[in-house]
């Protein structure tokens, strides 16, 4: 099969290789554990094989067949991707395995998939959706929300996005197979990180003073010196960015404060 032929729209699978709802639910549940054996040598490679395994059982000969064993060995090697976007790879690679695409082409396709699935996910989720929903919950906290409300303000929208993203990724991988690259190049995925970053910046601006006010409590005049100190501290942290991590400096500062508080009593 040539690459051009492989990039043509996916053809329907034979009836004996169609996948039922139960199998999809198993695959989706396994996707939640895709990083279970994450390590510095194969990264989440074993997880990809683990998630795909129920789909590969449709190969001729079933779990005892040579096709199944070859495919599972191939799909459990080194792979790197964002854990949520790895569902694209699981869907697309399972589809090409079941579509009798030659192994050499599958391996090239697998290698080509890894890079974009990491960078898109990191920007969209770790540096976008997660901080945005977390900051929104801090706004709720600053407004005096109850602990339950605050937790729901974070968990519900975050997981709505999270689970929808995993389901979409699996679906788009499975339905597009070798042609999945076009879905990853969609304007929505390219523009969303910047839109989320702007929204998160605005929400952060609201969240920091409100959350600080609730944490400090008491008289409003206590708040201004705290926020002024925080602003100076933030500027200093930005200047040392790359050499020191903020949380380690916070740890150091609080250790010193605790020592002074007890010794200088």
């Amino acid at each position, binding site marked *: 099969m040539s690459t051009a032929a492989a990039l043509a729209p996916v053809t329907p699978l034979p009836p004996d290789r169609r996948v039922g709802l139960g199998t999809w639910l198993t695959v989706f549940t396994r996707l939640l*554990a895709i*990083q279970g*054996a*994450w*390590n510095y*040598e194969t990264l989440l490679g*074993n*997880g990809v094989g683990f998630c795909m395994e129920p789909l590969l059982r449709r190969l001729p000969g079933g779990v005892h067949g040579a096709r*199944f*064993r*070859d495919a*599972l*060995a*191939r799909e459990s090697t080194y792979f790197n991707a964002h854990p949520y976007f790895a569902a694209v790879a699981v869907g697309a690679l399972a589809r090409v395995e079941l579509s009798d695409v030659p192994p050499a082409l599958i391996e090239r396709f697998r290698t080509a998939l890894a890079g974009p699935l990491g960078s898109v996910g990191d920007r969209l989720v*770790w*540096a976008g959706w997660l*901080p945005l929903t*977390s900051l929104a919950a*801090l706004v709720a*906290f600053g407004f005096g929300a109850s*602990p339950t409300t605050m*937790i729901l303000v*974070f*968990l519900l929208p*975050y997981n709505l996005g999270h689970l929808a993203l995993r389901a979409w990724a699996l679906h788009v991988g499975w339905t597009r197979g070798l042609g999945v690259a076009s879905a990853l190049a969609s304007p929505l995925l390219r523009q969303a990180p*910047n839109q989320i*970053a*702007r929204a998160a910046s*605005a929400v*952060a*601006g*609201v*969240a*920091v*003073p409100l*959350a600080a*006010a609730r*944490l*400090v*409590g*008491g008289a*409003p005049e206590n708040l201004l010196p*705290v926020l002024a*100190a*925080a602003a100076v*501290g*933030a500027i200093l942290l*930005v200047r040392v*960015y790359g050499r020191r*991590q*903020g*949380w380690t400096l*916070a*740890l150091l*500062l*609080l250790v010193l*404060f*605790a020592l002074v*508080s007890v010794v200088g*009593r």
Partner: protein
Amino acid sequence: MTELLPLALLGALFGLDVVCFPQMMFSRPLVAATLTGALVGDALTGALAGATLELIALATLPFGASRYPEWGSAAAVGGAISAALHGDRAGALTIGTLAGLATAWLGGWTLVQLRLWNAALARRMRPALDSGSRRAVIGLQLAGLTSDLVRAALVTAASFAVTFPAARWLVAHWGPSLAVSRGVTTAAACAVCGAAVWTIFHSAPGARWYFAGGVLVGFSILLAR
């Protein structure tokens, strides 16, 4: 200390959620510290510790193979200690946050060890994995998940067992007032959060103006109260 076992179990679930399963982010400090606070009997103080640790945790981006603090067990310990010491006592929130940060450091180190252990296990199972053994692939995954659960339980239990007596002593001998203690802790957390917001979002066009607009709205709300 009667809470040690349930706390270790809760910390195990939070620690597992950070990387392995199901990454639904109930391990975030805002959630985890509040829930452990509730377990100890003071959800509100747990929420205060959670918000403080969350402001600091925003700076952590869990990109691939980078080493980062593990906030699940950390939040369990920080929330439990703050709640057990009662947040309205001077120093309680500071010490709870400090215990959380120390646990985050320890948890991050154990995550690295877990990944090395997983790699060693994969190397040992290489012949079976290369032959496409279904049992080996599933076994390796389950071994990794179980190890992470145990790791997080041990980190939570060990950290709480060591830091709680020390925390109780520190709070009993604490000098500064509640306002000063809360002020210093909040300023440190907000500084880390502010720097994180700048670092993560400043490259997005117009983000700094959105942030400035947000600050204006935030202060307007505070003045209107």
